[in-house]
Structures are given as C-alpha cells and as structure tokens.
C-alpha cells in the first residue's frame, strides 16, 4: 500500500516540478511548433501528393510518439540531477523499494509527457492537421505504453552512464539520431537493408510505429506508413521495455551503492 502511495507522491513531485519550471514549459512547445508547423507544412506543400498520404499527419503522429518516448526518457535522466542536488538521497534512504522509486519517476514523467502531447494536439488543431480526435483518443492507452518504454530506456541509459553530467551530456547523442532512425519526420519504409538494420536498433522506432499502426489501422495509407503490425510492435515494446526496466533499475541502484 505504501509503495503505491509512494509512486503517486514521487510522480506528483515530478509533475509539480515540471509545472513550476517556466523554461521547460516553453521549450516543450517550441519543438512541436518547429517540427509539425514549419517542417511538416513546408514538406507537405513540396511533396504533397507524391507520398500518397498527408505528410503533416505523418509528422504529427511521429512527434507525438517521439515526445512521449523522449520526454519520459529525459525525465528519468533527471534522477542524476536529483543525485547532484542530493535530493535523491532523501528518496533513496526512504524505506520503499527501488523499483517503486523508478516506477514513480516514470509515472511522473508520463504525466509530463502527456501534458506535452495535449499541447501538440492543440497546436495540430490550430494549424489544421487533418487528424481525427476520436482516433487520437483511442491511442491513449498506447501513449502510456510508449511512455513506459521511454522510461525503461531512460533508466537503462542512467544505469550505464551513472550519475552526474555524463548521462546528461551523452543522452542527446543517444536520442537525436533516433529521430531519424525512428522515422519521426522522415519515411523510413524503403531505405534499404543496411540503414534498415540501424532503424531496428533504435527503440524509439517502435514507440512511433506503434502509434501509427493504431491510427492508420484500416486506412488506405496503412501500408505506405506503418512498418510493423501492431502486435509485433507491442510485443517488442513490452518485452524489451520490461528487460530494460528491470535490468536498468537493478543496475542503477546497485551501482549507486557499490561504488
């Protein structure tokens, strides 16, 4: 019971921290504006019908997947920030399970990522991205799954890079290439085998593709956009995510103690 309450408390703390950080709030909305607004709109007018599907919608869904994955992963990296500020010591000496701490952190960052998605959806509405509100709402449970996956990726990264500046400095190098390997704003369906192998190695790919596989399900654009069937994406996310979560949490906590 206490573990559940603690998850809520840790998540609450993370969410409050986000709401009170004005710079982070502003930065949250700048990227979607650039990606969906500027990139999406300009490519749509250039490529237009050649793709056979709406490019802005493609980017819109890609950015939602990328935001959920990246925001949660980046939030978990903040465990190292806490470590520097020594606040994590207060959490780590409390009598709760180490897994509870990481779950609480992932849950908190999920709330942060979800509120960012609300911003993206509103922005998409303003610039008239042709999306269906009902279909976006139907993706909600999958949003949570992508967040968990991002969080699991984050804790694995932290567990290898350790506390301190290392993780924060290396993290962008691990996340930015995934924008392209995951096909957030570039179609990667027919890019040839060598590059395709690389895309399979980018976890974000599955986070983005799972949302597109839900959204485009039954539509004519499905075959042109979606990379893997829904079940396969889910299997990879749940399987790989669970391994990353358990191993990352175990490694992170033991590494902290066994210095």
């Amino acid at each position, binding site marked *: *019971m*206490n573990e559940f*309450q*603690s998850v*809520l*408390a*840790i998540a*609450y*703390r993370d969410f*409050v*921290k986000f709401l*009170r*950080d004005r710079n982070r709030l502003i930065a949250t909305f700048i990227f979607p504006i650039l990606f969906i607004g500027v990139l999406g709109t300009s490519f749509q007018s250039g490529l237009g019908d050649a793709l056979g599907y709406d490019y802005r919608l493609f980017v819109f869904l890609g950015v939602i997947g990328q935001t959920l994955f990246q925001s949660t992963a980046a939030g978990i990296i903040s465990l190292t920030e806490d470590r520097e*500020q*020594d*606040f994590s*010591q*207060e*959490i*780590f*000496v*409390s*009598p*709760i399970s180490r897994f509870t701490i990481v779950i609480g952190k992932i849950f908190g960052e999920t709330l942060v990522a979800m509120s960012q998605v609300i911003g993206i959806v509103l922005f998409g509405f303003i610039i008239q991205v042709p999306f269906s509100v009902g279909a976006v709402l139907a993706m909600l449970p999958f949003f949570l799954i992508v967040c968990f996956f991002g969080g699991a990726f984050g804790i694995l990264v932290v567990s290898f890079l350790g506390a301190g500046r290392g993780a924060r400095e290396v993290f962008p190098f691990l996340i930015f290439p995934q924008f392209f390997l995951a096909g957030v704003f570039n179609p990667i369906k027919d890019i040839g085998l060598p590059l395709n192998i690389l895309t399979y190695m980018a976890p974000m790919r599955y986070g983005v593709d799972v949302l597109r596989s839900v959204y485009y399900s039954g539509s004519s654009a499905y075959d042109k956009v979606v990379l893997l069937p829904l079940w396969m994406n889910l299997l990879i996310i749940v399987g790989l995510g669970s391994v990353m979560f358990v191993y990352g949490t175990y490694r992170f906590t033991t590494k*902290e*103690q*066994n*210095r």
Partner: protein
Amino acid sequence: MNAIIVKDLVKKYHKSEQNAVDGISFDVKEGEFFALLGPNGAGKTTTISILTTILSKTSGEITVAGFDLERQSSDVRRRVGIIFQNPSLDENLTAEENIRLHCILYGLFPFKVTYNGMPGEYKERVKELTEVLGLSEKEMFQAIKTFSGGMKRKLEIIRSLMHKPHVLFLDEPTIGLDPLSRKNLWDYLTEIRKKDKMTVFLTTHYLDEAENVDRVCIINKGKIVSIGAPQEIKNSLTEHYILVDADERLKLRMELEEKRLQFKDGDFPVKVILEGRSAQEVIKMIDTPLSLLTIHQPSLEEAYLQIVGEK
C-alpha cells in the same frame, strides 16, 4: 542496549587502492549522543553513508536499531532519520510539500494532491512545525528557494523527525552555516534530544561541537585513533601543565630542579608538567615569587591536533 553496532567495518572504493574505512569497530548506546570526528578524507562520510544504507560496505558486520544493515535494510531505513552533508530538500517544492512527500514515503499518511486533502492529524503536525520553525503559515507554503541556509537545515531536521526515528544521523550538519545559525541549530538539536531521548550520531570536523557529546570517536585515514568521553580523551592525550615565570629566573629554575618537578627547559615562561598532581599542589611547592602563572586548560582541539598530526 546498543543502537548501533559496528564490527570490523571495511570500505574500499572501486577506483581506490586504499581502504577509505579500514577495519573500524564501535558501539553506540541507545539514547547516546555520539560524534565521529576527523579531518577531511578521514572516512566519516563513508562510514555514515554505509550506516544509512546509501553505500554498501566491503566487509564487516553492522546492526542499526536492532536490524542487520545488509539483510534488513528496509527495516533500518524505517527507523533512522538522516541529515545529509549537502541539503537534500527539493527546491522546487514548498516547505510543506517537502514534509508531505517525506511523510508519504515513510507510510505515515496516504497521498493527497493538496494540503487541504490531507488528514487533520497531519495538518496539526504541520502547524506545530510552523511554530517551531518560526515561520508564518504563508511561508510554510512558499517555495524553499527563498529560505536561509539555517532555516533549510532546520526544516531538514524537522522532516527527518516526522517518522520518529530511533537514530538520527547528522553528517556535518552545520557546514556552511554562519555562527548564529550554527548556534541556533545546536540549541534546537539539544532541545529535541532532551525531549525525545533519541540516539544521535554526528559527524563533524568542528571540535567545539564534539566537546558537548557523550562520546567521541576520532578517526583518521580510515582508522579509529581514539574513542571515549571528550574529557577522557583530553585527559589521556593532552599534557596538563602550568606556565610560570619569575623575576629571579635562575632561582626559579634551580628550585624546580631541586624539587624534581618536571619542566621543559628553554624559553620563559617555563612549562611545568603536572604529572598527575593538581595545579594547586604544584603551585604550593614553588617558593620563588612568581611574576606569571597560567594554568593550562587542555582542549579537545589540542588532543585532536596531536592525534591527527602524529598519524
């Protein structure tokens, strides 16, 4: 009963060739005020980090509040309160939110999003704390970024006492505080000790702080150099002497020799070692009229410098 039992504790960091803590053993009795004293790098923070489950030991046996540190770490955590060397408050939260988070992590109250949703008992305790901290009710609900260093320390102590710990660990709690804040904090600690009769384990490199504890353990380079009541350490490790001078210095020196009093020859004033006698007895033995007489009061600082300097 002992609140803390440490047997042959060794800690060797992965990247280090030497042991940071090198086979130390000591007990802390229940209700005792115990200080671990030593220079920077002596192994104080390493020891307290191990005792508070933050760091794992290389070898040794440790019991805290009756629980084995390794096998029952969760039980240990539930029963100890910790004040870290660096502030561990969340600067983004208000004072009340910091306290609320702590209470929930320790299972004292269920989680509620707002203060208003929390049970009456919690609100009562927060109200009491507001008074202890000397804060206005409004300040309790402000982000702690604006608080002074002393105030933050006090808030941390209050937070660590919320779950009524058996043992309170303080790792150099007054570091970075101005003298007034240090004194205030010290008075407050003394007060809560008297009231709650809890075991307090302190690390410090301020000697004056260690003067007032029940027992002090001096460590240097990972080893225990001396352990006992501050007075015992002073007695066993420092010289007790008087300083004397006279207009007729030759006569004084001859008299000291004649009466077989041990003194350090050289500059004046002369240092006469008491050798177990009281200062009064020695003074009575000297007939030469004195122009100066100083009774030396040994301090823990002297003992400490002697120990740390020697090793």
